[in-house]
Structures are given as C-alpha cells and as structure tokens.
C-alpha cells in the first residue's frame, strides 16, 4: 500500500514513483525521528530548520541519518550545524551526526569569544569537535570513530564587533547565502558558498565522500566562507539530499527560494521539504537563518502571515 499524504503545493519534478511505502526501523539501536523541525527567534535572528527521512530509507525500513543542532552564547553569538551520517555505516553513523552537530555548535561558541581570527578559530573548533565525537561515541555508545562517520556544515554568527558570519563544511554538506543589495531593501539570489559541483560530471560521483568527521590525526578538508553579518539577508545550511536538488533542479531552487523568502514556522519549513524530484530519495535537512530580519512576520503553514506578538 502506497503512502497517502495530505496534498500540498510542493512541486513534483520528473517521473516520480507513487509506489513508495513507509516502514519504520524498529530494529535499530539508534533510530532517529523520521521528522523533526524547529523554528523561532534566537536573539535578533530567526532560525527555521527541518529534517526529513529520505524516501529510500523509509521504503526499506531504515532509520534516517541526518540531524541538526543550534547553540547560543550569553553574548548573543549563534552557531547552527547540520550533519549527515555516511551510508557506509547505516546502523551507527547517525550517532556521529548527532554528536558532531552538537559539538560543532558548542565548540564554535566556546571558541568565538577568545579568538580574533575567525578562520583560525573555526578550524580549531572543528578539531576539538572531532575529538569530542571520538570520545563521546566511545564513552557513551561504545562505538569507535570508524563507525560514526558523518559530513557536516555549520554557521557561526558573531554579534560582537566586527560582526561576522562564518560558514564551514566538511564533506558534501553545503552552505548557501542570500546577500543584501547595499542601499536598498532588496536582495540577491540564492548562491552557493562552496563549489556545488560534487556528484556531477565535473567533480565525480556523489557517493564518494573524501572528507568527514571525526578524523584522526590531520585536519579534514575544512572549507570556510565568511562575510560581514550586515551584508547577509539569510543563509542556509543543507545536507547533500537538499543541496543536490538545489544545484540540479531549477524548479526545486525556485520553490525553496520562494518558501524561504521570509522567516517561517517549523511546519512551513517541513512542508518546504516535501517536494518530489525523480531520484531525490535521500534524507533532507535544511537550516535557514534570517539575519536580523526587518519584518517580524513569520510565514506559517497555511500561507497566511502571523504577526509577531
């Protein structure tokens, strides 16, 4: 029996099957929720984030492996991370993703107040987070580092002067940004912070990941992007299940740009990820952070606007 769900306005692109079934992974020692979402103000910024298990995982009765986390310091700095367990370890890599997302956020915030050079600070924080994942996985889950690999993307918004945002990634998670147009209320298009050519003819196959957390010894291939906080309208962190859709489908890109045009509720964000695209069957996680938005209105599920109280 196929899944029957409420109708929505999300696009269906290509030849999408109607035969997917929904099976829960009741045998996993470490199952993740099939659906998870959060949205709300964190200081002056609005964060909306959702994670949805992939159709392939659900059809085969396997737990998803995506997750996210966020953390704020007393000084108002904000860190958000998304992480994706590698499919090579379907039973345990989601633990690595959970730990990595949490520890990246915590270490970035702890490091932020002490370092002047944000790139150095981010690099150090990632190294500490990687060590944390090894230690925590071993101590609390009796898993060695090789069984908890994951990719991750994070952002770190530093409010103290000079206020800056740093976006980083390890592996094939991604960061995107919409920049303000100086001197106007307008903004530019969604654009990638990093090379989005992974999994394409130019870069090679998608299922060959060259960098992940945790890593023993030397640093991973950590990519960083930064900009003054005042120049950013919003930024988005995605696992590869969403970033490949953003890069490979103009229709999905238009849909998500439309859905993310203003701060939105958790259910709105979940609905945003309900699009269908032929072959797009992996877990989907997206975290969108609107930087000090000028409007306090938040889009909700029924497309009406709810004034901020």
């Amino acid at each position: 029996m196929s899944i029957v769900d409420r109708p929505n306005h999300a696009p269906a692109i290509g030849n999408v099957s109607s035969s997917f079934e929904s099976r829960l992974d009741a045998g996993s020692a470490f199952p993740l929720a099939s659906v998870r979402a959060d949205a709300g103000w964190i200081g002056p910024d609005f964060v909306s984030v959702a994670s949805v298990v992939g159709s392939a995982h659900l059809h085969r009765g396997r737990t998803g492996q995506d997750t996210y986390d966020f953390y704020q310091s007393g000084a108002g700095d904000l860190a958000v991370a998304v992480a994706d367990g590698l499919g090579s370890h379907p039973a345990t890599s989601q633990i690595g993703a959970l730990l990595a997302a949490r520890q990246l956020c915590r270490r970035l915030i702890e490091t932020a107040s002490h370092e002047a050079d944000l790139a150095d600070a981010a690099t150090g924080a990632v190294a500490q987070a990687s060590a944390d994942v090894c230690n925590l996985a071993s101590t609390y889950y009796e898993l060695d580092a090789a069984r908890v690999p994951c990719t991750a993307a994070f952002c770190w918004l530093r409010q103290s002067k000079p206020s800056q945002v740093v976006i980083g990634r390890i592996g094939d998670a991604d960061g995107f940004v919409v920049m303000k147009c100086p001197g106007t209320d307008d903004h530019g298009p969604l654009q990638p912070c990093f090379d989005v050519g992974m999994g394409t003819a130019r870069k090679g196959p998608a299922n060959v990941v060259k960098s992940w957390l945790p890593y023993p010894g030397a640093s991973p291939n950590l990519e960083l992007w930064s900009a003054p906080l005042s120049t950013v309208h919003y930024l988005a962190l995605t696992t590869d299940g969403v970033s490949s859709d953003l890069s490979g489908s103009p229709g999905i890109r238009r849909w998500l740009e439309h859905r993310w045009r203003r701060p939105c509720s958790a259910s709105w964000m979940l609905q945003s990820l309900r699009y269908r695209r032929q072959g797009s069957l992996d877990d989907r996680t997206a975290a969108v952070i609107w930087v000090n938005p000028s409007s306090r209105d938040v889009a909700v599920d029924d497309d009406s606007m709810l004034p901020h109280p």
Partner: protein
Amino acid sequence: MAEFADYETFPTFPVYILTDVSASLGAAIEEINAVLPELKRMLVSDPIAGEMARVGIMTFSASARVVLPLSDLQDVEMPILSTGSSTNFTAAFRLWRTQLPADIEALGRGATFYRPVGFFISDGRHNGREHWADELELLTDPTWRYRPEIVAFGFGAADPDALARIATRHAFMATDDSTVEQLREIMSTLISSVQTVTSSLGRGEDPQSMVEVDHRHFRPIPVQEV
C-alpha cells in the same frame, strides 16, 4: 563557483551489463534474452531503482558493441542478443571506457551521478591479440572520476584468475551442472543485485551491500588487488 543546472537533471545510478556473446554460449544466450525483460519489469516496479537506475548493455565477442546505451528502462524495448565468434576482453573494456564519460556527460551539466556499477559476465577466456590488462587498468584507474565498480560472474570455461583481476569488489563462478543453469542463476542474481545496489544510496566503502549470491549456486573468487 556556481554549478547550478540551467535545466532539470536527475540523480542517476548508472548500471552496466557487459556480457560475453561468443559462439561458445550457443543456445544459452536465450537465458539472457529471457531475463532482460524481467530486469526491466523489476526496475519499473521498484520505486527506488525505477527512479534512479539507468541501464546500459554492451556485448562482446570478437568485437564489442553497445546494444543499449544508458537508458531509463521504462522508455525502451530490451534488446535481443545473438552470439558472435570469439572472446575479446580488450574490446569490451575499451568500449566501456569510451562509453562511460559519454553517458555521464549526456545526463547534463549539474546532474548527480553515483559511481557506476558494471556486471561483467563471461563463459570463456580472452583470445584476442591484445592483452586486456592495460585496457582494464585504464578503466579502473583510481584517479579517473568515471571508474566503475565491477562485479564479475563466470560460468562454463571462464578463467577464475582473470575474473579475480577484473572484479573490483566481488567475483563469482557459477557451479550448477549445465551452462544454461549457470547462466540462469547469474541473470537472476544480477536482477536482485541491481535492485540492491541502486537502493543502497551507499557512500564510502560498503562492499557488503553490493551483491548477495546464493552460495548453493556460486563459488566466490577472492578479488585480486591490481
């Protein structure tokens, strides 16, 4: 830096069947012809494989040819194979090495593809003039972005040592009494393997998810590091 596609592209899992059609197959080739429509039915009915798998079929005897370019099987009729003459692995690998990049690039700029998987099937030994090792080395060069994973199946008078060198992950010799039965089991395993491979969405090293065989009908061959 941007690599956004200008038109719709779709994540694709390329699967190739590279099969011996030399004269020695004889009437056994009808086993392949009988199973190809079954492969199509499976892919059309499986939602994951149906959305992601694209299948290409190449045959080799004295020369090699593409009988089905990488295709969505929903949209094509399966070819009917016929036997040729001798057995030329070199021609097979050379054709595959030229076909792969053409197929991948035809998916479109920005299209996501997973590492191609090929199922190599042979009942005999290479007897072409050029040795096949150099061509295989180019095909499986670790630095070549299109390099495929190869699962090798042998039956009849196939050379296990050659299969061990050709395969990158798994190699098997069929063990049933007749070549017809052996080939039937190979094709049945191929169908289930295509389904397993395309649904794995695996990343990194995950050899266990590649192929599952019934060990009553197959003898695993240890794969050699080249």
